[in-house]
């Protein structure tokens, strides 16, 4: 069972789905479920496409890092589509292509192929956000996203001019052996970093996020903030860890950008009065923390942070967007008392929010404790302090939000959540609690995530 099926089957289904509108949603669900099941039977390996030797053909790369990422992305994708497939039937073909592209992003071992998948995933995302009915924000997203991927391509082409290869492993090998001064790598790496940073919502380059997530619905909100964010952060993490390996002045610049992103994100969330804005600024600062961890080489905990965040954000966005669909406004004051009649939903929301804050008993705490310790060990005390301050701010506004949503003085909101929603919330809440209390499997998995480096060793040195 080759991992290529994870990309080929959704694509085939997408091409077939335009022939019949009725079958398309069924195909979408079937393929989504089939992908998760098929993934269990796929061995970890390097897959050559077309049968050409490594640097010449394109290859896919399924290791345990990619496997974790694929389970996460395919699982979340399936949940989100399951909840929305009835309402957004028209988007079935587009969602199938998006699934193929996200799997491709996580699997591909070729840097130009990565660009192609980035564009496909991007175009699918623009189309998913057209359901917000805010064409101007979609337009902004399209323009900024296209500039981002152009910058990535620009950086990549400079690397090609220097090393004459596009394959990720071959490129890393060339950089290690050619003995090029790091100074001449700054320009291409920085261009690629900015290009991908735009997609990954890093602060200085994320003008698109606000318009998109502020008006999001039950499809676009969870899809962009949870599924896409997880996939792009994990792909970005792989590149940062294996290819960029920032050092010297470039490391300082990148760190300053990221820390500024964390602080500004939290500050803007603190100021905001709208539920969805609070969530979106919080997710910006979480994205910055994730990339910060990748830059500092704390891979395992960065991956868990991505997982914990993706789960929590899925719940938060689903609850708020489902509620705003009825209230037509996401002002915190209009949503007061949302959970008075929906205890279960309230508990799920609270658990997810507390986990993002990093309180004990939840998975967020385990992750936060571990990465802060590791940052402290690595000697980045300033960053530890700043993240702690940011967490404090985050705690304040989340508690404020929770109090408002639980208690209301005058009016009562009555919003019914369907059974599938409740089931999803129950499962995710259970997961967050489970890993929060019983953290030893996480601890023991430490350093189990092997990297491309080992693979390069196998290929080039036997």
């Amino acid at each position: 069972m080759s991992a290529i099926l994870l990309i080929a089957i959704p694509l085939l289904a997408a091409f077939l789905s335009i022939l019949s509108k009725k079958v398309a949603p069924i195909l979408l669900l079937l393929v989504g479920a089939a992908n998760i099941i098929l993934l269990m039977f796929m061995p970890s390996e390097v897959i050559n496409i077309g049968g050409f030797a490594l640097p010449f053909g394109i290859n896919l790369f399924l290791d345990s890092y990619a496997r974790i990422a694929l389970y996460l992305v395919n699982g979340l994708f399936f949940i989100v589509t399951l909840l929305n497939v009835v309402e957004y039937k028209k988007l079935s073909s587009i969602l199938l292509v998006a699934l193929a592209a996200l799997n491709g992003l996580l699997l591909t071992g070729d840097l130009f192929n990565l660009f192609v998948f980035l564009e496909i995933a991007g175009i699918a995302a623009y189309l998913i956000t057209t359901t917000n009915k805010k064409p101007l924000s979609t337009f902004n997203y399209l323009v900024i996203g296209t500039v981002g991927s152009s910058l990535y391509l620009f950086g990549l082409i400079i690397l090609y001019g220097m090393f004459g290869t596009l394959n990720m492993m071959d490129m890393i090998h060339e950089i290690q052996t050619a003995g090029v001064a790091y100074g001449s790598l700054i320009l291409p790496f920085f261009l690629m970093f900015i290009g991908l940073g735009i997609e990954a919502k890093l602060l200085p380059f994320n003008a698109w996020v606000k318009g998109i997530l502020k008006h999001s619905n039950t499809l676009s909100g969870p899809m962009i903030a949870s599924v896409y964010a997880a996939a792009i952060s994990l792909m970005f993490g792989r590149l940062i860890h294996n290819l960029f390996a920032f050092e010297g002045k470039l490391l300082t610049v990148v760190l300053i950008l990221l820390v500024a992103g964390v602080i500004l994100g939290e500050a803007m969330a603190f100021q905001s009065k709208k539920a969805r804005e609070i969530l979106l600024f919080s997710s910006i600062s979480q994205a910055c923390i994730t990339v910060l961890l990748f830059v500092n080489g704390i891979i395992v905990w960065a991956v868990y942070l991505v997982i914990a965040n993706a789960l929590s954000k899925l719940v938060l966005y689903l609850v708020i967007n489902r509620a705003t669909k009825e209230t037509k406004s996401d002002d915190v004051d209009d949503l007061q008392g949302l959970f008075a009649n929906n205890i279960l939903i309230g508990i799920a929301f609270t658990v997810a929010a507390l986990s993002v804050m990093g309180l004990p008993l939840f998975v967020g705490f385990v992750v936060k404790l571990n990465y802060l310790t590791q940052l402290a060990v690595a000697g980045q005390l300033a960053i530890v302090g700043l993240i702690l301050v940011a967490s404090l701010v985050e705690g304040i506004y989340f508690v404020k939000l929770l109090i408002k949503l639980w208690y209301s003085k005058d009016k009562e909101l009555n919003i019914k959540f369907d059974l599938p929603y409740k089931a999803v919330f129950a499962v995710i809440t259970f997961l967050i609690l489970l890993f929060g209390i019983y953290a030893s499997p996480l601890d023991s998995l430490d350093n189990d995530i092997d990297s491309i480096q080992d693979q390069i060793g196998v290929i080039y040195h036997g």
Partner: protein
Amino acid sequence: MKKILGFILTIGLGLLIIFALDSNSSFDDFGFANLSNRVSSHYITKGSNVDIIFGETVNPESGPANIVTSIVVDYRSFDTLGEVTVLFISALGVSLLLGSAVTQKRMSLDFKPNFMLRVGSRALFGIIIMTGVYVTLHGHLTPGGGFPGGTMIASAMLLLYLADDQFRAKIKGFKILEGVAGSLFVIIGLLGLVVGTYFLQNFLPNGTVGDLFSSGIIPIVYILIGLKVGSEISGVIDNFLTEEEAQ
């Protein structure tokens, strides 16, 4: 004022990039690309030590005489599958955004096409279609291939749209063609996985370099791409040239 500042800033950035590239010793100077350091040298020699001779060499690693085609549809054919998908999804998006209204009519172009124009465009239509088919079929020998060929076919449709105010193509048929051609591309890829060992493997014999019937699945894939691109772009043109029925 803001504009001047922006201009100076961006041009300054450009000069900075130029200087950075200039002082980068491992970045090849313009016009002196060192192909022996690059993977391209493998593509040109097709991975063999012997000379590849047009019209004589039989069954090389990759069949096409046009080396760019051998990269696009053979060595890096997975990129091309992605490229086809990009066009597919943006055509789908255009029809989602513009073609979702229930009643649609042709947008009138505000001029009366005369007899000459109508007949002339029909005559040209055939010639352009023929050129498109030629370019698609010979993609592995001469410059061209499925993408420009398919677009030429679509621009023949565009000509009909422009010459006749009432003309509308049958979009339903295009949809079917598009879906079938795309599926066949993936199925050919999967066939490579079944017949051979790799996805998108060229499982047919490569033949003699330079023959029209050579290089295995590549002409077939290019024909499929041509059909798919042609029908997709015709669909996009139709979507752009229709509007909602005025109430």
